[in-house]
């Protein structure tokens, strides 16, 4: 079961995981990552009131599908699910969910981390912050060098 979805609605992580393992007995390990909106996510440490995620419809799905295909080429995956939300989210809200299934844990861990690292740097999503203090209403989150470095770990020359 391989699936990529972009949606505004919350997701049910347990239901997604159930889809990976249901009715099969060859899955030995399932890794999930859930990314959440943090209250202190702002660049200057000031409180965050909300994030609005803009995305490029069509390309977002296609780009993540390409990541999933690349992950399947690198590791023996039995399933993978990616759900990415868009729209307005407040601290504590889940933003992104990645789940990978494999016979063995190492492949599931590596593929989940690979998908997240790639998502961060090449999935066409952009975050705009609303600050709790109202001081800077409308700052676009800047890309982090640490995310580029994380994605570069997987580069193949």
């Amino acid at each position, binding site marked *: 079961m391989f699936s990529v979805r972009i949606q505004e609605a919350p997701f049910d992580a347990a239901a997604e995981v159930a889809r990976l393992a249901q009715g099969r007995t060859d899955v030995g390990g399932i890794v999930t990552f859930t990314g959440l909106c943090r209250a202190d996510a702002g660049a200057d440490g000031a409180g965050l009131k909300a994030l609005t995620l*803009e995305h490029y419809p069509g390309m977002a799905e*296609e780009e993540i599908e390409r990541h999933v295909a690349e992950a399947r080429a690198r590791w023996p995956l039995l399933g993978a699910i990616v759900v990415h939300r868009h729209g307005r989210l407040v601290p504590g809200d889940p933003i992104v969910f990645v789940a990978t299934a494999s016979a063995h844990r190492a492949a599931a861990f590596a593929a989940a981390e690979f998908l997240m690292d790639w998502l*961060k740097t090449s*999935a066409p999503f*952009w975050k*705009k912050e609303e600050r709790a203090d109202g001081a800077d209403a409308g700052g676009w989150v800047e*890309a982090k060098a640490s995310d580029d470095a994380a994605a570069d770990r997987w580069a193949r020359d």
Partner: protein
Amino acid sequence: MKILYFAWLRERVGLAEEEVAPPAEVATVADLARWLAGRDEAHAYAFENAAVVRAALDRRHVKPDASLAGVREVAFFPPMTGG
């Protein structure tokens, strides 16, 4: 040719998308960005720091020297901050 703008590029241009017909000498993504920047102040502001602007041709990431030949949809946007 359809042009899409996202995030602060969209805000600076003041449009989410537009149809343009650049002249034949506009052959690459970099050419197109320069040509668009020359259209008006809003576009100039959007592309003022061209080095940070990313592009996709028909929904695939490309480098500034990518050819526009046969392309239907060009998107310009800042570095991605999803996940």
